[in-house]
């Protein structure tokens, strides 16, 4: 058995968990993270959304905070409003503060502003609103200025089909009266991956790490740039490592145009970069990260005493118990994807949702868990399932009573919002992670 003593234990290593942990560590708190795996953060496209849409309202929230006047009417339990104690102005302030407090590594990775939604061109050719994109994606922002974009796919990597995506892009741009921005398709091939069957982004990245391959790739791009003379070349999100991101400049110099990535479905380089940056935040700040599964809490008198988990150091070694003892705990285990919540069924296939660590009471909207339309802009009930928290980010039951005095929560484990519909995922994770940390600091 291993025993870990720490002041605060954070469960979950996604955006919300690391935001809480880093805020605490920067304030001198001894923090430890335990997680069973990576969650949604690593699968995302690494943009930091604040608020794109309000489900019931047509049109984008521009600037993001302009949406709050609708939010107070349509959803008073939205985590942003909860974090702001019900006051939209306070909510705005806490969001600004949270983004200000982002760890340096995360800030340095991104460009953008909390006060503005930019339109970024995606691998589908659609435009999506977001507040911050990673720097390698900056060229994918459609600023409204006249430019010619060469949307460039890699042969055999179907995550970005440039012909399809540029057709959609031109349609989308025209509908926004931006038809003068030209998006044209092109292809490059990566020689040693010609004829590969499982062509995925991590593989492309690995191959490009080899100098010879990279030089070949560069030559192809230069040829393309010479022929088409674009302002910008956009590629799928393939530059997974810092080394490759560094080399994008080399490509720009050689091609004499901007080189960027578009947000691409998982596993994309931008999601992996964000997760890696979060890992770096932990090592820089001296936050220990443990891997453990089957976490079981022990509670006494309304207080979480310890959490017992199972740990395997190597695949074939014996599983060992690991015990975490902390004064305070932060639950940042994500939603259905990250598995902070699971959904099981009984013999009659009646569904039962469960919070996976503490079995906390869940908010479950009334009615069917999914509408008949996956593209329903009002979202889906199952996305809104999560725990209830008070403004201190403490899990509460349906009557508003605090469940465990020393337990806090952050991120998509919290209910009452749908990031697919609202485009607000990372914003909620960052804000609630920050707020949970602040609540803990104020109790020291």
């Amino acid at each position, binding site marked *: 058995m291993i025993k870990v003593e720490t002041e605060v234990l954070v469960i979950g290593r996604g955006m919300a968990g690391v935001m809480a942990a880093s805020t605490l560590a920067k304030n001198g708190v001894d923090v430890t993270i335990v997680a069973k795996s990576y969650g949604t953060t690593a699968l*995302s496209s690494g943009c930091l959304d604040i608020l794109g849409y309000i489900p019931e309202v047509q049109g984008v929230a521009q600037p993001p905070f302009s949406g709050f006047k609708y939010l107070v009417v349509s959803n008073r339990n939205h985590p942003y409003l909860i974090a702001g104690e019900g006051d939209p102005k306070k909510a705005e302030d806490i969001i600004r503060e949270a983004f200000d407090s982002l760890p340096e590594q995360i800030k340095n990775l991104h460009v953008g502003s909390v006060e503005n939604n930019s339109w970024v061109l995606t691998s589908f050719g*659609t435009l999506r*609103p977001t507040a911050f994109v990673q720097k390698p994606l900056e060229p994918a922002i459609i600023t409204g200025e006249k430019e010619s974009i060469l949307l460039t796919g890699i042969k055999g990597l179907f995550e970005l089909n440039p*012909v399809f995506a540029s057709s959609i892009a031109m349609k989308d741009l025209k509908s926004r009266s931006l038809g003068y921005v030209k998006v044209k398709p092109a292809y490059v091939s990566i020689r040693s991956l010609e004829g590969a069957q499982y062509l995925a982004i991590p593989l492309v990245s690995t191959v490009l790490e080899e100098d010879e391959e990279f030089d070949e790739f560069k030559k192809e791009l230069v040829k393309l740039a010479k022929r088409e003379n674009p302002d910008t070349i956009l590629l799928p999100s393939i530059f997974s490592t810092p080394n490759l991101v560094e080399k994008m400049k080399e490509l720009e110099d050689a091609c004499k145009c901007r080189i960027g990535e578009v947000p691409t*479905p998982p596993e994309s380089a931008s999601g992996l970069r964000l997760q890696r940056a979060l890992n770096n935040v932990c090592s820089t700040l001296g936050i220990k990260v443990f891997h453990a599964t089957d976490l079981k809490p022990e509670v006494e008198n309304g207080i979480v005493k310890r959490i017992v988990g199972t740990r395997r150091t190597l695949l074939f070694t014996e599983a060992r118990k690991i015990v975490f003892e902390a004064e305070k705990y932060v639950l940042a285990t994500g939603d*259905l*994807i990250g598995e902070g919540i699971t959904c099981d069924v009984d013999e009659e296939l009646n569904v039962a949702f469960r919070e996976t660590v503490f079995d906390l009471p869940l908010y479950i909207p009334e009615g069917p868990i999914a509408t008949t339309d996956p*593209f329903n802009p009002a979202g*889906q009930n*199952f996305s809104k399932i999560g725990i209830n928290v008070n403004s201190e980010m403490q899990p509460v039951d349906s009557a508003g009573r605090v469940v465990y005095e020393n337990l806090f929560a952050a991120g998509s484990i919290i209910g009452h919002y749908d990031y697919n519909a609202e485009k607000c995922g990372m914003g909620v994770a960052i804000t609630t992670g920050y707020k949970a940390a602040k609540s803990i600091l104020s109790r020291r």
Partner: protein
Amino acid sequence: MSSEKFDVIVIGGGSTATAIARDLSMRGARVLLLERHDIPLGATGRCHGMLHSGGRYAVKDPESATECAKENKVLRRIARHIVEPLGGYFVSIPPDPPEFADKFVEGCKKTGVEFHEMTVEEALREEPNLNPNIQRVFWVNDGAIDPMKFAILMALDAARNNAVIKTHTEVIDLLFDGKTVEGVKAYNHLTGQVERYKAEIVVNAAGAWAGEIAAMAGVYIPIVPNKGTMVVIQKRVLNHLVNRLRRPTDGDIIVPHHTTAIIGTTSINVDDPDKAYPTKPEVVKMFKAAVEIAPIVKKTRILRAYAAPRPLIGAVGVSGREISRTFKVFDHEETDNIEGFVSIGGGKMCTARLMAEKLSDLVARKLGLRAPCRTHVEPLPGAEDEVDIQSLARKYGLYNSVAARAATRWGTLAYEFLDETVKKPELKALVCTCELVTAAEIKYAIEKTWAVDIIDVRRRCRTLMGTCQGQNCTYKVAALIHELTGKPIEKILDDIALAIRYRWFGEREVFYRDQLRQAALKLGIYNTLGNLDRLMGM
């Protein structure tokens, strides 16, 4: 009006219609086949895919049992590449009535259904996932067949014999010359045009919709649309098809199929065949019944549910289970004094060839065609030779698993589409990693087998049908269609919306555990990343 006059127009694109088109075109007739959507969209595209031994009908429905037993042998020959010759078990699990076993033995003997009894130990050794409480087990010659590919290959064969195949063309009326049907009026869904075609004889093979076509001629045929719901699970679970040893009831068969197994099925008469949807109570029934047969199903991931309308021949008010599964040819010249018009109804997917033979005999007589039926001797496209997986893989530089999946879907036709990868190696890349589908295969489906949208491609290549239910491949297939055919992007977006919505419809009934988690990720990709909810949903 098309100036060309055909010998025969066949209405429908299920197993029945495509088998008729194949048969008549092989006898030398000039055939036009008109299907309102895609070739196997009706019952054929959504059936259980059982290559019946006849065992299921041996007791209650001897006529159908005999037909199945005969055709079983034929299809194993002419369609061997798309048949999985698994063999089937009939098992009795309490409280199945013990006396049914004796009736079963008697029925099989009478109808010529091959069978033998096995010991319970033997059966459990072969099928460790079976319920250990089984009392008696009989082996029969059941198999699985890909019903969609079956219809498509028959259409392909018809086309090779000069038939014209038109999909997405809906017959909206019949053309008359006095009391003689002389053609059809059809709406082309792709062009928005109304078209007219003439022929000596119009064959109504529209399955559960045959009653509607007959009504266009002012005649009545007793087609009862009868709904069956099925549930797809993520693993094959069993090595054989397993049936219950009792009268057919809801949820008594499990059929391993490609990478999945399909649990079936209910039998409910419905008014409108276009409204055959699965319901939650049916899914629950199916699930519980399957757990009884194979307890492992309880832990197995359910992918989705779906339903289809059977074209049974019967009388209104009679329960679907009581109606025979045999078929009937209606010569409207004889019964209704209308010339140039024949209908067919009932039957099974796996007896389609036999049904077509009977109907074609009649039509050939009317046309004065002398050539004999050859559909039982000629192999379907792709079944000409056995495919050696290793050498296929080696020839094109594929993983064995990828080559094996291509060969089970297409037989020797795999060589045709893989040949393109020699010049264009990027076509070797997988578009669907659940079912291992290469871009080359999708290109072939689009260019050679009348697939015009994402769902059409699904029926041919099994894209969208695997574990992720189209999460990773829907947009990739859409993109290929756009790139290869230049289909307008507005239409492509509609296709994506339709394909994802259609999957969702079946998944929704089983949203729990990993399938719900998958749905969450799917929305993350299409809506959070792609913003498609705002593009399509508003």
